[in-house]
Structure formats: C-alpha cells, structure tokens
C-alpha cells in the first residue's frame, strides 16, 4: 500500500503556551506590587525585642533610617545609611541638607521636623547609639525626634 506524504512526516506537536505566559505575567505583576521600595534602607540585623513599643505601621514621611550593625568577630559596630557605610562626620554631613532643607525647620521652635529611626543590632554597644544621638542634637542639625527600632515581641509571652 502506498502511503501518503503526510503519513511519513512526523506530526508537529503544538504546545499551547498561552496559559503558562498568563500565569507567569500574573506572578511578575504580583512581585512588582509586593516589592516595597521603602525597605531598601533597611539592613538585615538582629533587633532587640520590645513588647511595649509602638508598632511601626505608618512610618513618618520625613524619616531617615540609620542602621548600626555589629561584627561579633571583630567586635566592631558599623553605621550604614542608605546602604553606605558612614562615620559620624559623614553621617552629619549627609543628614544636614535633609534636616535643614526647604520646609524642614519648624518656624516656631527652629528645630528640624526630621525623624530619625536608629536600627541598632541588639549586641552592639550603646555607645554608637549615643553618638548618633549626639550627631542629631548638634546645633547644625537640630534633630530631636529620634526613635529606636525594636522587634515587636508583643503577644509572644
């Protein structure tokens, strides 16, 4: 029996890609929405626990986050601001234009409206936090709204 031409050729398998592409795009959109750009200032560190702190649900608009990490091996603390390692002088210089920028000085009190959140590793010496507070309180910066971050431990007991 003579076979037709079409029987000899291997049949082409067409995989329908549409549902897979749909799901993939859906996942991409999900991740793009979930990604929080405000988290970029946050460095992974071990925060101390606090049960009675205020939950940080609505972060202040005028807020700068300063991270203090602790190297257990070298026993050294490092200040990280906007993903950059800084010393106290640099920190003061970096905060100056933000703290004294347009509309940032309270006309009545003459103090800065800027909030500073210090996220310090639980094992770091308190000296670093003290010195950051000292930088904030300088007459040039006049920042007095300083907050200390802690891991929310309410309801753990």
């Amino acid at each position: 029996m003579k076979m037709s031409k079409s029987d000899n050729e291997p049949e082409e398998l067409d995989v329908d890609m549409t549902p897979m592409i749909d799901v993939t795009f859906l996942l991409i959109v999900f991740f793009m929405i979930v990604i929080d750009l405000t988290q970029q200032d946050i460095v992974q560190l071990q925060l101390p626990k606090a049960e009675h702190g205020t939950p940080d649900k609505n972060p202040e608009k005028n807020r700068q986050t300063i991270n203090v990490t602790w190297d257990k091996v070298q026993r050294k603390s490092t200040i990280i601001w906007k993903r950059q390692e800084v010393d106290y002088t640099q920190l003061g210089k970096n905060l100056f234009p933000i703290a004294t920028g347009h509309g940032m000085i309270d006309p009545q009190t003459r103090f800065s409206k800027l909030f500073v959140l210090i996220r310090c590793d639980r094992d770091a010496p308190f000296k670093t936090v003290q010195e950051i507070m000292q930088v904030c309180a300088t007459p040039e910066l006049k920042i007095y709204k300083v907050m200390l971050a802690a891991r929310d431990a309410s309801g753990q007991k």
Partner: protein
Amino acid sequence: MASSNDRAMKREVKMEFTPMIDVVFLLLIFFMCTLKFKILESKIATFLPTDKGLNKNFEELEPVEKIRIQLSLRGEQCVCRINGQSMGIMPGATQAAYSKIMQLKAASEKSPAEISPDPRVQHKHVIDILDECMRANLTEITFTGALPDLKTKKS
C-alpha cells in the same frame, strides 16, 4: 489552480515566543530573589533635649524626685541599679526593675525616669529597660551618661 496571492494568505504566521519567555522567566526569578517580606517592627520614641543641648548643671534645675536607672558593666555582665539599689544582672533583672519602678511611681506619680547606660552596655539591655519603663507607663524618659567624644573634646 491557486494563485500565488492565495497561497500567501493561507500561510500561517507563527510568532517566536522563546525570547519573550526567556525574559519573562528572568524577571520572575529576579523578583523572587529580591523579595523581602516586610516584618513589622516597633519603635520607641525618644526626644532629644531641645534647649541648649547638654546642660551640665541640669541637676540644680530639677525639683522632682527622679527614677534613676543605671546600667553598668561588671566584667561582661550588665548590672541594673535603680536609685542605687541593685536589681540584678540583665536581662534577668527586668522583672525586679519593673516592680521597683512601679513602687517608685506609686510614691510619686509624675516621677520622670533617667536612664544612665554605660556606653559599653549592649543595646538590647537599654531597650529592655526602656521597654519596662513603657510597661510602667512612664511618660518622661531621658537619657543621661557620659558621651565619650564630647567629654574628650571638652577636657
């Protein structure tokens, strides 16, 4: 016989999806790797002095009895003292510290707390004590203590 035009019309147009899928998967992997779930943190608000900065003679200006909390180091251990009375070694001393704060608060409702941590004390012990102050509903908490750099600059 079909014309060449007809044949062209019938020819199926196939789109090459492979590069698009490649890019899409690359994006997907990127987002999956960079994803960080937001962990709810808490904050303890402190306000730095707004007068003339560090006032060395502030003791003379204060008529109210303060709750003086001292955190000092004994070797590697952090010792908590309230108004000179030892509460024990941190973090175990937090309960005793809370009881003492409540006792002092009962005697004078508006007593402000003054925390003097040794600069070498670990940050977690300071937060523990701050947490106990918040638990005792103390509204006025101030930090004192030697600021090492300032001290060296002035001397």
